[in-house]
């Protein structure tokens, strides 16, 4: 077993264990942190595939931004585990078969028949001088420019929708217009009065 294979097994073992803990951890904050660990190891796996841009993008976007906000929300929630677990046995008749179905589907798609070495041979190693950042950029902005633009527009619509849904103009709010605050001059607030000196 060479070094890379050993690294692969280390990363994937931690990844699977962390993913398992995400769904089994009692404390939701722990679950989020295990999810972060899972992302980190997935990023390590991508690095092994020589996809350094995607690997670091995973860290920057998911670990650095999305999960931080996730953690932010989860920490604020007052989660009562007892209440969450109450419906477990009542809903099992629906949840159980769906879980089994998903496992069967994943096995059907991801099994060795369609993802084995014969069906998916390892890609040729990239030449030393090729930057995969550049290759990705070329692919996105030339070959796949329309799907890419379309995806961006969909994201933009979702973004604007989220803002619009949350934007409520309150009548009684007390916030101040920053431009007016900055525009305040000394003479608006202070009046200099010249007084004769008073002596005792």
């Amino acid at each position, binding site marked *: 077993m060479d070094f890379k294979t050993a690294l692969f097994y280390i990363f994937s073992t931690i990844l699977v264990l962390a993913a398992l803990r995400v769904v089994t951890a009692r404390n939701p*904050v722990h679950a989020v942190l295990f999810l972060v660990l899972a992302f980190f190891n997935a990023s390590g796996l991508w690095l092994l595939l020589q996809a*350094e841009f995607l690997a*670091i993008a995973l860290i*920057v976007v998911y670990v*650095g931004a999305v999960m*931080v906000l996730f953690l932010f929300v989860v*920490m604020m929630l007052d989660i009562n585990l007892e209440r969450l677990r109450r419906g477990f046995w009542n809903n099992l008749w629906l949840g159980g078969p769906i879980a089994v179905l998903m496992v069967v589907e994943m096995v059907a798609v991801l099994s060795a028949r369609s993802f084995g070495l014969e069906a998916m041979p390892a890609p040729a190693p990239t030449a030393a001088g090729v930057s*995969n*950042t550049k290759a990705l950029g070329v692919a996105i902005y030339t070959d796949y420019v329309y799907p890419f633009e379309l995806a961006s527009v969909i994201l933009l619509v979702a973004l604007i929708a989220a803002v619009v849904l949350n934007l409520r103009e309150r009548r009684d709010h007390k*916030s101040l217009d920053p431009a007016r605050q900055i525009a305040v001059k000394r003479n608006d607030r202070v009046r200099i009065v010249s007084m004769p000196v008073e002596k005792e």
Partner: protein
Amino acid sequence: MEQLVLQFFQWFWNLFGAWDAVWAAVQPVWPLIWVLIKIVVIVAPLMLCVAYLTFAERKVIGYMQVRLGPNRVGPLGLLQPIADGMKLFFKEVIVPSGANKALFFIAPVLAIAPALAAWAVVPFFDGGALANIDAGLFYVLGMTSMGIYGVIIAGWASNSKYPFLGAMRASAQMVSYEIAMGMALVTVLMISNSLNFTDIVRAQGRGWFAEQGAGFLSWNWLPLLPMFVVYFVSGVAETNRAPFDVVEGESEIVAGHMVEYSGMAFAMFFLAEYANMILVATLTSILFLGGWLSPVGFLPDGFHWLAIKIAFFLLIYLWIRATFPRYRYDQIMRLGWKVFVPLTLVWIAVVGIWMVSPLNIFK
């Protein structure tokens, strides 16, 4: 460099006549040892710089406020940071009774590890980086975005009100300013055509001004002046330094996420904060002020130029702290989202149009 070190070891072990035996044992793992040596050579001076940055901060702010600053321990007070370090080292680490113990101790580690890991790709002189990787800029962005976990976990694991408020403030603030920082870096990589730090610095050494011997005019700060300012100010906000230090605003929430920490655990947060300050100063020097390049043609390039530039930005850090009052929290958010992010977006478009126009100077 590697040869020199090897020769030194050979000379040392030959004093005992044991070089051949030692080399036979060490040779298989020598690349690992060599990397470890390089890591020590980077981290040890960095820690020393952190220690003396705290000293410089107190001295500089002292002089700015017409005081003397620390002057009791050692000549001119020069041993003050050592004394501070010793004190923190021997203090008891107190764990609050309601704290989440495991996370309470992981938090300082999560704070300092990314702050040190980011240094792996920073080039100190031409070819002088621990790892000269292709996506260096992106790697640093990823590592610095990890630093927030230390703060946020510390705040939550302490199970205390002020630390929690500090962590909430920190997560909102750092995520906001990261966007402005990343966008500012996009313009840099557009005109340098690379994510590699060494290439970015080399790209700044080319151009009409560099040929005339006035290299400092061909550095990135001039065509990207707004981004230069945005990047450095966002860097100040990202490291939670004054005037953006509401995360640990003394008058409001004591010391934010660090309230419940003592001894070395507290010192780790402190080290991480100052290591991040030096990192932001270094990155600003490399990305906008030409790194190790000499400002004028008749002087040689070298590490000393980078050191001077870093020291300059660190001085600005301290100067800002001594000058400006603390921002209000909503104003911080406004500056990040409504001023910096639109400004960077506009400047990305400006640089893009500039680069496809006939006036393109970045070739």
